[in-house]
């Protein structure tokens, strides 16, 4: 068996593969977070909760109405996105005048509510969601068996990330969005409905989180707390990438997933904190993040 620095190569490749899967989730989640931050200036602490709600929406859909996985991929983000729009309309909107930390606190409270409600209804240990029939089984890669479903997660998130990037960077809608980020009042003066755009952006960002939740449902247990620890990692990913930077969020999500996977082979104890350590280093050397413009 070949090895690198005394570590068997299959182990490294296997963990890198899993890192890529995790990185795909990070990328999807940090993408939504970055989009929301870019336009609203709100750090959405409830992002993990929306991810969790997406997974639960898929679970409930399957159990109650028999909605299958493929429809859930569409409907769950839609439902959660609408919830997000309501939250923006009714709650977040009132905080744009005050300091951004209040947005953080508000969404923190919302996350507590969402987790508490789900925990009271479904219990803390969570529910399992079956892998859709089409994606069952695995590829034997030689060094490991890669379940087909996980390969699908990587593919699906790559497509979604690319699409989002395209919409924001290459379309007319995207250019308005970016302009509104720079100077909302000016854009408003040009006759573009900025509040509507803000609302839809929050809805879309939240829907991305919910989509990640549906993708994750068959991989991890659908549980009320599935998002709460993840959201902090994703924060760190966004800070590393540069707040508000789309490309930064996607790339650093993937790369950090890989680094985390590698850490699991070399020094498993550190795998939970490696992201935060990298974040601290980045902040010391490049306070605006790797892809961010100097604030």
């Amino acid at each position, binding site marked *: 068996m070949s090895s690198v620095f005394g570590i068997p190569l299959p182990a490294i490749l296997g963990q890198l593969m899993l890192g890529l899967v995790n990185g795909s989730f990070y990328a999807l989640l940090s993408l939504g977070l970055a989009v929301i931050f870019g336009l609203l200036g709100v750090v959405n602490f409830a992002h993990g909760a929306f991810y969790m709600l997406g997974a639960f929406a898929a679970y409930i859909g399957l159990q109650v109405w028999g909605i299958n996985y493929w429809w859930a991929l569409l409907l769950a983000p839609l439902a959660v996105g609408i919830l997000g729009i309501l939250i923006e309309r009714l709650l977040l909107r009132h905080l744009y005048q005050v300091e951004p930390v209040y947005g953080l606190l508000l969404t*923190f409270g919302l996350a507590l509510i969402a987790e508490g409600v789900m925990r009271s209804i479904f219990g*803390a240990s969570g529910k399992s969601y079956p892998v859709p029939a089409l994606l069952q089984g695995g590829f034997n890669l030689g060094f490991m068996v890669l379940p087909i479903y996980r390969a699908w997660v990587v593919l699906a998130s790559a497509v979604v990330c690319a699409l989002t990037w395209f919409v924001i960077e290459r379309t007319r809608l995207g250019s308005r969005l970016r302009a509104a980020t720079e100077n909302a009042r000016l854009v408003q003066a040009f006759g573009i409905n900025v509040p509507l755009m803000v609302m839809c952006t929050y809805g879309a960002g939240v829907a991305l989180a919910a989509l990640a939740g549906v993708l994750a449902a068959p991989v991890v247990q659908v549980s009320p707390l599935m998002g709460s620890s993840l959201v*902090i990692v994703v924060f*760190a990913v966004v*800070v590393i990438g540069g707040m508000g930077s789309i490309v930064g969020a996607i790339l650093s999500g993937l790369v950090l997933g890989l680094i985390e996977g590698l850490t699991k082979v070399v020094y498993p104890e550190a795998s*939970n*904190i490696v992201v935060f350590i990298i974040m601290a280093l980045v*902040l*010391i050397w490049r*306070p605006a993040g790797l892809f961010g413009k100097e604030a």
Partner: protein
Amino acid sequence: MRAQIAVYVVLMALALIAPLLGLYPVFLMKLLCFAMFACAFNLLLGFTKMLSFGHAAYFGASAYITGWLVTVQGWGTLAGIVGGVAVSMLLGLVIGAIAVRRQGIYFAMITLALAQVVYFICLQAQFTGGENGLQGIPRGSLFGLIGLGEDRIMYYFVLACFIAVFVFIRRIVHSPFGQVLKAIRANEPRAISLGYKVDRYKLIAFVLSASLAGLAGSLKALVLGFATLSDVSQGNSGEVILMTLLGGSGTFLGPAIGAIVVVTLQEYLSGLVGSWVSVIIGAIFVVCVLVFRRGFVGEIERWFAHRN
């Protein structure tokens, strides 16, 4: 001013007789520890406007260190407390030095992320007992003379510590150092242009706040006899924010009152409604942020100010 003194005298009297009223002393001590924690946190949020989202790290680290020193190393109670506070001070210095470089939400997120590192260290280090936590921490005695095992004696010790911390924070805020902090809070660029080394002032405030939070954590570990992961968890960091906000950040009494309300709610609601407690806590959070940003004491103070 006279009204203020009257309030303090009444509260003091209440605190002194509380255990004699048949209130459960362990619960009262828990209230005091969290009140102290919130007051320490308020030094940062209320008087410097820095939102630390990871204050549980200092609270919890100190609880662990004190517990470990007293239980495993056989240190005395006071030495154990000093050791715990020293560690949280050091931790505050390291994390603060990184965090004060940024402001606002960046500051919040850095403190949150680094507190998460502390959490994982506590989870994995040998001396903390991992998921089990440290158990059976003895309260010991003061100078080998006054045994703290008796709940009421321990209560008055914790009360004395709380009052000392409270007076200390008042003193700091009213000192020239506190005035500079206020200036930074009001207008940071201006403070810089006046020649103040703003980062240094902020760092000192951060370290002070972390140390006092550590003291609260040490006392909590001694009172309840254990230090566990809940103490260092993100949830604990969130709760101290809620306490401060609810009671009124930037007021002296507010955080203590907020702490009493939140801990009491948790204690008595959890028996009644189970896991709906976190929903209620979350809802209070939302209401606080949307319509009640001054908190109880803040609103009362404003009401008095308007009347006069």
